[in-house]
């Protein structure tokens, strides 16, 4: 089974989780996801997801000027975002429990 197919459904959750403890700009979020082991996540998908979550009002953003390199747009979770993250985590756990039960002994 292709991991990228699975990723599509949970990319929102992954991005929200990557911003839970610390604000981050696009490339930073991408790096955090990679470091967590999500190698197959597409670069553009992460940027697009950040943009969509921002438009949906669960993220706020601010620009940090930098001496070298481009200005960076940082994203942070707002209260709506934290609520959404908590809900998504619960949904995810229920789902994985269910799948775990279903797949027990299959492998």
């Amino acid at each position, binding site marked *: 089974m292709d991991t990228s197919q699975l990723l599509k459904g949970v990319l929102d959750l992954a991005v929200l989780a990557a911003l839970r403890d610390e604000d981050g700009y*696009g490339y930073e979020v991408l790096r955090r996801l990679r470091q967590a082991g999500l190698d197959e996540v*597409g*670069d553009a*998908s992460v*940027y*697009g997801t950040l*943009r969509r979550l921002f438009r949906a009002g669960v993220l706020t953003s601010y620009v940090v000027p930098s001496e070298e390199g481009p*200005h960076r*747009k940082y994203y942070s979770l707002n209260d709506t975002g934290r609520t959404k993250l908590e809900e998504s985590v619960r949904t995810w756990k229920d789902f994985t429990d269910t799948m775990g039960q279903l797949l027990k002994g299959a492998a």
Partner: protein
Amino acid sequence: MSTHTELPVVAQSYLDSVRTELSDLPASEVDEMLDEVREHLSEVSGELGDDLSEQSLRDRLGLPAAYANELRTAAGYPVRETVIRGSKFAEWFPVACLGVATVAAFIVGTDPREHANPLLILLGLGAVAVAAGFVLRYRPDLRGLWLGDKVNQARAALTGQGSPALAFIGTLQPGWWLLRAGLVAFVGLQLGTLGALVVGAMLLAMSLWFGFRTKADRRLLWIVTPANALAVGLLLSLITGTAFRPSYYNASVPQQYGMYNEGRSIENIYAFDKDGKELGTVYLYDQDGRPIKLDDHRARCIEGRSVYLPPPTSSALDSNKFPLPRLEEKQQGVCKETTGAPFRPAVPVPTTAPTTTTAPTTAPAPTTAPQSAEPTQ
């Protein structure tokens, strides 16, 4: 993000390709997203270092079209409709129709009194309908994305990307939405359209709604373009003053009072019968049964004092009742109203063969000389 660091040439060219792929989306959205793509490309270019080339960039990020498509999908925008390669006619005919509608709307706007004829309005509306039908039937890919592309291209050509002047004009846009609704409502009001105020409020709401929607949904450009032309025309007509030029059909004839006899204003009418005897009170009407009123600016004698009555007051009096009261000044400052004729008329003597069938049985015998038609002083 106003200041951008220079991207390496290959990265900039990649960015430009991505921009082209997203050109159907609202310009402000694209700018926001591309700011981050720029940041992304800058990071990736830095990591690739000396290995940076068109090929290495594509190995890492995929083709620009694929990158743009992934970005678009993840950001929740509709997939770009694939362009059907239809005939040139199918591509240009709807645009020509849009042009006709736009020109028609503009002409109506420049002189709403003279040009707002049903033919021109029908032509404009018809052209839009034909264009819409044609696009939906033959070229669904043109629906608005294509027109949006053209608008974005024109905008980019006119002003450089991210120019402060463009940004400033962008902030004025809602003002234009208010103005165009106000223009149409205002001119409608001047033309005496009933309920123009209600219509104006509706237009205002519509204009704002269209304004905001058009930024996201470029399909509305098919309607908004002719509507804007109409508003520009109206604005022009307001500036040049043609909108309120008195029309030939609506001249102020009903506002004129009075009658004239060989160039002299008639101030009173005295009626005599065939015998030269003065008739008492008569009421006079025209061919339509409307009361005949003379010049309403006339003096009346109220409580011995001569009062000049302005039209609204005097027209409330039964002024088609003749003779009108005539003022006689008895002494300085004291007046009196009389109704009798101030002259003796010369009623025509029917000694010559009368043309009427009912000949008078008794010949009138006027006491005064027959030719003294002039009123006695």
